[in-house]
């Protein structure tokens, strides 16, 4: 919990107010929409993947602070990584949200660890995982497309 007694800690509010990756991505190689129909959160994720490496990424959309900050933090983590590393982070993130991750795994998630408290908030889980699920869908689709 943050000092103010809510889970809206500084990492989360910073990414929500000043997202680093909320823009249109020129030269994107793939894009995927994610929607959370119960809340109305919606994002479009764009990635530029070359030789299995995520060279760049961006998102657009509208939703609560958790959905928007979570996808911004995610992009910050996966840009410059291989798609396999991105999948590994997604796996760890889902484990954390289910309350199953070890302290070492949460450490490995760096800033995304700021969303750990969501594991105690069933109503907000869908918001937190929206970006990560969209990423997984996109990577699965990219594999199908390539063959």
């Amino acid at each position, binding site marked *: 919990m943050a000092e*103010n*007694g*809510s*889970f*809206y800690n*500084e990492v989360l*509010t*910073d990414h*929500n*107010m000043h997202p680093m990756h909320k823009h249109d991505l020129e030269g994107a190689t793939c894009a995927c929409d994610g929607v959370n129909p119960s*809340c*109305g*959160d919606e994002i479009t994720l764009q990635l530029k993947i070359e030789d299995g490496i995520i060279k760049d990424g961006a998102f657009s959309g*509208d*939703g*609560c*602070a*958790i959905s*928007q900050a979570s996808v911004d933090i995610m992009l910050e983590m996966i840009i410059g990584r291989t798609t396999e590393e991105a999948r590994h982070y997604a796996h760890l993130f889902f484990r954390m949200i289910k309350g199953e991750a070890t302290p070492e795994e949460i450490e490995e998630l760096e800033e995304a660890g700021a969303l750990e408290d969501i594991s105690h*908030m069933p*109503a*907000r889980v869908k*918001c937190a995982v929206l970006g990560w699920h969209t990423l997984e869908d996109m990577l699965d689709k990219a594999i199908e497309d390539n063959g």
Partner: protein
Amino acid sequence: MINESDINRIRSQFPLISGKDIAYLDNAATTQKPLCVLDAERKYYEESNANPLRGVYELSTRATEEFENARAKVARFINAADPSEIVFTRNATESLNLIAFSYGLGKIHEGDEIAVSVMEHHSNFLPWKMVCERTGAILVKIECDPEGNITDEELDRKIGDKTKIVAVTALSNVLGRKNDIKRIAKKAHEVGAVMVADGAQSVPHMGTDVQDMDADFLVFSGHKMYSAMGIGALYGKKKILDDMDPFLRGGEMIETVHWDKVRYAQVPHKFEAGTVNAGGAVSLGAAIDFIESIGINDIGAREHELTKYAMRLIKDIPGVQIVGSKDPEDHLGIVTFTVDDVHPHDVADILGNEGVCIRAGHHCAQPLMDHLGLKSTSRASFAFYNTKEEVDRFIDSLSKVRGLMGYK
């Protein structure tokens, strides 16, 4: 008039809020339930339960009496001419679907028009959209101004010779504004259309007289007026109900069934197929007794006072905007608002963290959100058991939201 000492006594009858650290301000979604209502349902199952309308033994007769007594209470509560004009359903949504499937699909033809206001809950929009899609009728949008007002000119523009059904809510679940159903029904009747009024938000908070408003149909849910979930009502003028086909078919809605020939029961039983929710009906009857023991006008007056008090304080919070009319006189029990830069789900979560329960989202009224240019909003809605202290708590939490989210 309800004074503060009455309120403590009244609140003590609501186990979920009595002495609990919770400010429940989501009453437009569902109200809490008083002990007398919970006890009535329990007593029905402990002392009078059998399958109503079937057996000839004494217990079944008693079950039937309890069920039909509840119907008579509902009829009296909204001043229906006769109890047979009340059909028990699960809720307002089911009532509206009943009208759409039975009356709509039966009477509407290609080229007819169904006029629906833009402020309707999805329950009073999607069934009419379905009827139009299946029959080739045209769905006509009755628009409101940003204050939620439907003008006479708009009614004249949208209700005409081709209009066969006019469907409008008596009180918007987002704007908290009343629509004058009597005035709209008059327009509908001038062109020979039937008037469908959604009373889900109005019936719990203001006196309802279906004969005076001259609605052909009025629907509402029990759970928004202190009774159990899963019971609601459909009022329909008898001559119209008599002329409609059944909605669901099966047990207890027939007179005789042979392989080649079926005779359906009279209204209202024609529309109550299968074993009924007798416990729910008894619960609704007890809820009406409870409301009448306090007085619907006093209930509405106190809710209006709480709404005005909340709106006055909201206006002083920087960065918070009230949706719809800024005049508290136009709001009954409902205040919908947005917080600059902050998504409604974050608003509701921050308030929820402090025990203040409000609703966030599109409130099942997405066409209205589109019309107002909003994606989603937050909503506080009051019942007469709420207090000014609870409103103060709500305002205190709401004042902190932008700061907690990092805004100045």
